[in-house]
């Protein structure tokens, strides 16, 4: 287990370093430039050059990257002139709220997707399976913001029981004080997630139901209920832990759209506003932080999987 842990940690670290390189290179190699974006269209060439010199943008790229990493390690992600706030501060305010949205919708999705997937697996190729598959595909094919809008139309307009806007507030506690406002954003993000998870649970359960140990259990005369719930379900659900990690990037992408639609004050909305205003320090900071969150999330999921399933960690340390 220790060897697996160290190997996996090292890999995660390399990935995080590469993420900072990629984000940095994208922002500095492409035309447009931070100077033009900050100073505006009217700035003269001399002003642009002065700004670039002051910010160190006229130095060699490697040196700039070195400076960037040095500041990053000290927790300095730069300063946003648009918000008149340090990037770290802006992210600190919003990251917990995005985590709340992601966590809530994942929780809802897992709780609903597992029974749905299991039902599909045991009623395979019969109408419950087809019906759930059809709904999953439909949810997957619908742009999230269109889905969210349908939810708003149905639950705020036609049948007005929920507010169409996410709760506003600086802290997570303030958001939680208005649970009704959280329902639509959470549900919108959860629906797409349910579709993906249910499909995964279904195929994992089907794979396991074909295994020899299930046949043994059945031939012992156990009830089908016991075979499915006690024997197959445990093994069938292990891979879902990995999926939790693998699905994080898609989840955050979805959160970006949902936050923009429902005016949810999280990382996605911060990033969106920054993109429209070409606020480069925020863009870079959010990209790096959200990617680190993804890497850490995937790492936790992998370690959790290794902890519950000895086959993984044995195979992991053997190679």
């Amino acid at each position, binding site marked *: 287990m220790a060897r697996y842990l160290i190997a996996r940690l090292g890999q995660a670290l390399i990935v995080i370093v590469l993420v900072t390189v990629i984000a940095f290179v994208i922002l500095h190699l492409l035309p447009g430039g931070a100077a033009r974006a900050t100073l505006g269209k009217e700035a003269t060439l001399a002003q642009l050059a002065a700004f670039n010199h002051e910010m160190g943008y006229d130095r060699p790229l490697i040196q700039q990257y070195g400076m960037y990493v040095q500041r990053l390690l000290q927790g300095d992600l730069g300063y946003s002139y648009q918000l008149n706030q340090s990037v770290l501060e802006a992210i600190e305010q919003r990251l917990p709220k995005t985590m709340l949205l992601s966590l809530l919708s994942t929780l809802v999705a897992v709780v609903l997707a597992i029974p749905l997937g299991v039902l599909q697996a045991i009623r395979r190729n019969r109408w419950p399976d087809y019906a759930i598959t059809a709904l999953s595909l*439909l949810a997957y094919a619908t742009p999230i913001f269109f889905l969210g809008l349908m939810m708003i139309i149905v639950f705020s307009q036609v049948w007005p029981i929920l507010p169409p806007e996410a709760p506003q507030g600086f802290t997570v506690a303030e958001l939680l004080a208005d649970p009704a406002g959280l329902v639509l954003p959470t549900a919108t993000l959860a629906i797409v997630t349910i579709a993906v998870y249910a499909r995964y649970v279904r195929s994992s359960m089907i794979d396991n139901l074909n295994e020899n140990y299930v046949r043994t259990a059945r031939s012992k005369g156990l009830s089908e209920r016991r075979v499915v719930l006690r024997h197959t379900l445990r093994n069938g659900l292990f891979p879902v832990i990995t999926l939790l990690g693998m699905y994080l990037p898609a989840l955050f992408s979805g959160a970006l759209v949902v936050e923009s639609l429902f005016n949810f004050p999280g990382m996605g909305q911060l990033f969106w506003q920054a993109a429209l205003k070409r606020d480069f320090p925020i863009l870079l900071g959010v990209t790096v932080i959200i990617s680190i969150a993804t890497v850490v999330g995937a790492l936790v999921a992998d370690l959790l999987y290794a902890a519950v399933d000895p086959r993984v960690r044995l195979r992991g340390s053997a190679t």
Partner: protein
Amino acid sequence: MSTLSEAVGPAEPNDTPPRGLWRQGLIVFCENRLALVGLGLFVLLAAVCFLGPLVYQTDQVHTDLTAVYRAPGEQGHLLGTDGVGYDQLGRLMLGGQTSIIVGLAAGVLATIVGTLLGAIAGFFGGWVDAAVMRLVDAMMSIPSLFLFMLLAAIVTPSAPMLILIIGAFAWLGPARLVRGEALTLRSREYVQAMRGMGGTGGRAVRRHIIPNAIGTVIVNATFQVADAILYVAYLSFLGLGIPPPAANWGGMLSDGLADTYSGHWWLLYPPGIAIILIVLAFNFIGDGLRDAFEVRLRRR
């Protein structure tokens, strides 16, 4: 069509000679009703978008402020007009052309780049593999929509630019898939034999790895196209799509959001439904192709 009806008819497994892989795949694909529905849907949507304007001619360049928000059917506008007087049905056709072309091109670009890199990484192994795969890991950890928005904020989006942006970052999935295939394929006897006879690594990749992995790749490509169409829609919604007078379904749908409460339903639902239909079509086709190509799954 005679081959089709033959294929669907009852086949005697012992009497018929073994069929070629492609032919057998075609038969399995055609037996999958959903896959045929998907293919039909795609052909229908493409025909309407690309051939429709020949029959239903509208002016999609000049705005007409004397004819804004016409309801469907008024003055010969079958689906009404939008806020600047463009005919909505004509605009749907034009927007569909962009959506379909961008989706297909980005999907194909991602697939080609990913296949090549994945095959090279998997076949050569060692540090080449490690370098490519760590790059893939790193890029996969950046949520794609954040990456696309970062790029779209820097360059001015246009249809070719969107194809490049999405294509340049969507190759990760195919790269992983092909690498996995290449890892198992390179240890097969026939590849070893070819190497033993003095064949080069490039030949192994070109003649053995890629042709063998092609099924997986094509299946994945169809899903890539569906995803690319959705990404274009998201970028438009987030205000970083292709600017007017060009149109695409995602942009039209985002514009339609503003009309939700004004009762101009024809500006909202048609582009939304069009996107759902085309994404569903590619997903159905992809599922059908998977059944057709993956020999292991066939006899289940």
